[in-house]
């Protein structure tokens, strides 16, 4: 793994729970393996919510430190990923609510790593122009949503979190998650021009 230093043992075969036990036992660098397993999902989620690389980077790093400090509360027979993603999302939500810079991400801005702009990257090789345009429209529609709508959609779509986990993250009842998520999806459809009324017509 690119993220593994040569002097770090290969722990890729250990379960999340075993890694956590190692860390609790003092082998703190085993945390690197937990990070390797989760950082892509964490970054994508944080980036969706905050929209900026710098914010997403801070959020994810803070979230890892928080998770490390809270490892005693982690039930080691459960997967680390979903638990960690709820920490990421809370940290990201706090960040956007604290009024951090919110400049909308430009789809044409170069990627952080100096790579091609997003408008080119969303194109899979061999993908037709129509599909590319559709993806760009979806990205733009997503970026145009309110923070709340974008965040809850990110939790569901990027974080792949269940309603119960989203409820835990947002500290609201599950029923509220249901309705907020529906409103967010309606807003996304509206932004895409695929307008849906709040309720489909009754027959």
């Amino acid at each position, binding site marked *: 793994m690119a993220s593994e230093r040569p002097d770090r043992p290969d722990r890729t075969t250990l379960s999340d729970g075993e890694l956590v036990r190692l860390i609790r036992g003092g082998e*703190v660098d085993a945390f690197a393996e937990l990070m390797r397993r989760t950082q892509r999902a964490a970054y994508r989620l944080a980036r969706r919510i905050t929209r900026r690389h710098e914010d997403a980077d801070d959020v994810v790093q803070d979230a890892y430190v928080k998770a*490390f*400090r809270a490892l005693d509360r982690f039930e080691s027979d459960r997967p680390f990923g979903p638990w960690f993603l709820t920490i990421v999302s809370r940290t990201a939500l706090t960040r956007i609510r604290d009024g951090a810079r919110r400049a909308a991400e430009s789809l044409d801005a170069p990627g952080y790593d100096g790579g091609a702009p997003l408008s080119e990257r969303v194109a899979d090789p061999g993908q037709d122009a129509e599909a590319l345009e559709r*993806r760009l429209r979806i990205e733009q529609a997503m970026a145009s949503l309110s923070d709340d709508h974008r965040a809850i959609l990110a939790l*569901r779509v990027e974080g792949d979190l269940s309603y*119960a986990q989203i409820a*835990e993250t947002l500290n609201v009842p599950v029923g509220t998650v249901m309705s907020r998520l529906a409103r967010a999806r309606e807003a996304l459809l509206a932004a895409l021009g695929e307008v849906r009324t709040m309720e489909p017509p009754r*027959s």
Partner: protein
Amino acid sequence: MKHVPMQHPSNEDLFAYRDGELAGEKRFLIEAHVVSCATCRELVDGMSGIEADLKSRPDQVGEEYYARMTESVLGKIGAKSAAGAGAGAKSQARAIPAAEDAPRVERRRPDMEPEAEGRRRHLFPWFGVVGAGAAAAAVMVVVVMLAQRQGEWIRAPRPASAPEEPFEDRADSLAEPPEFAPEGPAAGAKQKLEVGALDNKRAVEREEAASGLAKENAPAPPVLGEDARARRSATASEKDAAVETRSANEELARGERQQSQKVDENLVAQKKMSATPQAMQAPSATAAAGDIAGGAPTDEYAAVLRAHGLPPVYDPARVSRDALLKAENDLRYLYMAGRAQTDSARVRLYLAEAARAKADPADSAAVEGVIHHYWRAIRLARKDPAVSAMAWRRLEEYQRETGRAP
């Protein structure tokens, strides 16, 4: 099917259904509606497509960024000091907000799904609902087994832990009934799988017949209990998957035929309501509408899968979510229109669903839910006396257990 609602469900319910977050009666109500309502299906499918696009957005950072981040975080938590968890971080001067963001034990609402990380809720709606842990594991193992048999589809990792207690009912609900006699090109090349969905099994058989694969593990017709046990030791994952298949197999082998074959009037009514989805207009003519046991309905079944770019046997974790959702939507038409003959996979899922509800005393609607699931299984299996009899027997047993008159 008395439960087809006349009004459209709310968007909340439709999306929650799509996300696999509904359970029990409500889920079936919404499902019944979505199956027969093009408007709602379009909404649900459209949203699925959009979210698939969002999710497949390419990464904006690369491996080197993640590597740098790892070292940075390890520095912050004091990894180099080899201190115990927390100790390193406490020495950090930088005040990081306390870990109040770490989630606590999850709550759940009775009408919502029990929490289960890692399952594929939205990907595979009804598998997802079955899927608290054991059942999902069982389904996955079946897929793995089929993949091994077929020898070409991607091998999925065995679930790390397969809970043991409620496994029996689920495993046997996934067991293969003995009575189906596939005809057509594969008739001479039967391969008996003791565990597996009928349609997948048939698809495998056809595949193998077509490719001329050896039938080294296709001995005589299954002597179900013993045979399953004997072959259970063949591979490790088979061993796990085939645990507890005997009761269902023996049960099935008895071949009881107490279920009357009268056609469920409500299902007929629903059949009339069902529109024909596009993907089904082309498929083979071998599966005439309303065909009966012994036909070759899986041509149509396989054709639907093919139309969505799916192989006959697929691992839900590995195929396009969008294609899967669409294919399964179309497949429901086959089930509901009676064109999938007995859909054994689906029947089993209802049985597994009943098992799940039985195992969950916290579910306030559990008893009604279990009975409802059995009824669904019985109705779906109406053309297959053996499966239907099994479902009847379980329903009766359950009713006795719960003190309800059969």
